[in-house]
């Protein structure tokens, strides 16, 4: 098939498996975020796609051909490093034109292409500046332009925005996504920031302990996490122990949830429900009784912490939806069945 396919990729360092039988298939033009906590193997996986590390086993296919034995400099890819790795002895223009220089392009062609790219990243006229004279955000753009100079098939970025301050990072996320959509280039970004992944990705690949735990569009990852690790890592969630009652319904904190059936063969499970899906109402009926312990009013949203059966459950709502509750008040928690995800525990 066309696109990038990872087949049973494993990378071991001694007895430690940094990446453990990773399988992934990405069609052309997709924006993929490799997401996970530090040490989960996401950077190692990216470096194997780049050819900077050799997989211990498995193969990497690009448009059906195995590129595993191809050395990095023949893979036709662009990569942005966490440190950016701009060449300190070259000017901005020469940095961007470096891949063309390697391939023996004429001086005029180099200049033409680097000016074109500088325009693309809104840095026209910066060509002759030394790299050291640029701000963090500008360097970021130059690194991106240099990686794109040859219109590569693959665009790889290793935590590219981690050195920027929060505001600039958010702006660059949007810019990077728009740039990728304009160029239609297959892009892999390594990040540990789930917000960043949600902003940019077509496909989020969540990794933990060297394994790919789930690969799906961001909203699906958010709504239907594959396991408790993914649910906990992506956004805020309430993870509650659940059991099956006599009728096969899921029961949480001693209260059965209407219309939520325990999957076949399970007696114990976890239920994940997002804070914005938890509704607060009067005590009684199907509601789980609890006591409000703290209310965090952030203006735009209100987070209510409710203690029930020794667990703290967070509910988030806008001020418009939420009748005023105060700490110490008894409330009923309603967990709508359609918002609950039952996970193997």
């Amino acid at each position: 098939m066309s696109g990038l396919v990872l087949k049973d990729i494993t990378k071991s360092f001694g007895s430690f498996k940094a990446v453990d039988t990773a399988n992934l298939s990405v069609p052309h033009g997709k924006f993929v975020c490799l997401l996970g906590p530090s040490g989960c193997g996401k950077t190692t996986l990216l470096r194997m796609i780049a050819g900077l590390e050799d997989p211990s086993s498995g193969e990497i296919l690009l448009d059906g051909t195995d590129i595993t034995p191809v050395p990095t400099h023949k893979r036709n890819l662009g990569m942005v490093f966490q440190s950016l790795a701009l060449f300190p002895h070259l000017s901005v223009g020469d940095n961007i034109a470096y891949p063309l220089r390697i391939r023996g392009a004429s001086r005029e062609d180099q200049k033409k292409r680097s000016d074109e790219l500088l325009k693309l990243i809104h840095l026209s006229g910066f060509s002759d500046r030394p790299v050291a004279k640029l701000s963090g955000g500008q360097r970021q753009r130059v690194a991106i332009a240099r990686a794109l100079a040859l219109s590569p098939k693959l665009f790889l970025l290793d935590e590219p925005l981690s050195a920027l301050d929060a505001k600039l990072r958010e702006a660059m996320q949007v810019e990077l996504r728009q740039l990728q959509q304009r160029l239609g280039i297959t892009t892999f970004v390594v990040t540990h920031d789930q917000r960043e992944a949600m902003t940019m990705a077509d496909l989020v690949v969540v990794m933990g302990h060297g394994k790919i735990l789930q690969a799906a569009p961001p909203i699906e990852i958010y709504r239907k996490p594959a396991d408790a690790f993914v649910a906990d890592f992506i956004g805020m969630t309430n993870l509650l122990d659940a059991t099956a009652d006599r009728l096969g319904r899921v029961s949480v904190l001693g209260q059965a949830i209407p219309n939520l059936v325990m999957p076949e063969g399970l007696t114990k499970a976890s239920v994940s429900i997002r804070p914005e899906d938890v509704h607060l109402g009067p005590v009684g009926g199907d509601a789980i009784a609890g006591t409000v312990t703290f209310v965090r009013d952030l203006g735009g949203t209100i987070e209510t912490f409710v203690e029930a059966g020794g667990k703290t459950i967070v509910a988030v709502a806008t001020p418009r939806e939420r009748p005023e509750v105060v700490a110490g008040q008894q409330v009923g928690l309603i967990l709508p069945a359609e918002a609950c995800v039952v996970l193997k525990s």
Partner: protein
Amino acid sequence: MKREAPKSLADYSPLFFPGLMLIVFFVIPFSTMIAVSFFQRDPSGFYTPDFVFTNYARFLSLFFGKVLGFSLVLAVMVAICCVVIAFPFTFLLTKRPRKVQTIWLVCLLSVLSLSEVIIGFAWSTLFSRTAGITNLFVAIGLMKEPVALLPSFWAVLTGMVYQALPYTILVLYPALVRLDPTLLEAARTLGASPVRAFMNVVVPALRNTIVATLIMVFVFALGSYLLPQILGRPSHWTLSVLITDQAIYQSNMPFAAAMAVFLVLMSLALVGLTLLVGRRENAL
């Protein structure tokens, strides 16, 4: 961070000790040497205080000019050979595991503990006809019969490069260890082969270090006076050899001092020129 300029005398106190050492062991002996270079030689004794230029005038001859030229060319060649060998070697060394690096560095340090005399005689044995490496070449069929490789210019050069190489590696090592490895990886993702990436990225990024190392080895090689005598012909003798000869065997201190002053001035001029060229290139 802005540092405050030292104000009181006590602020300058850390400088007293190194300052004193510099005065006692450098400024005084060097001034004495400059003074002696203007003294009159006394053939029956040592020298008498005077202010004459005869010592310098005697130096300005074709013979001494040739020796000076040879000394400078030899030192430059030693410096270039050392850096050309040591730079890639040290670069590859920094890519090895920590433990391997330590073993190599310890071995190199142990070479430093050898005196110039031992190095000289070891190489003179290795280059000899009777017990030298050419016997090995004969044994494996590369040569018909063993030959003596010394005395020759190449023997002198080899010995001096061998002696200066550990210093070169130890000076280059810290800079190469600190070099960001992603620079090289970035060059490779942009299509540069490993060798090309090394030439395009590592060498230019460390140009100042390379220039500094060249100067250090150059100065180091300029002072060598034993190896040229052990491994070379009289035509391969450096100015340092002649200075020793004049000072110790001919008891002509004023002339030896004049040659030494001249040598120092010439090497300072060369070092200055190198730095000047380096700065101009940096400005571009």
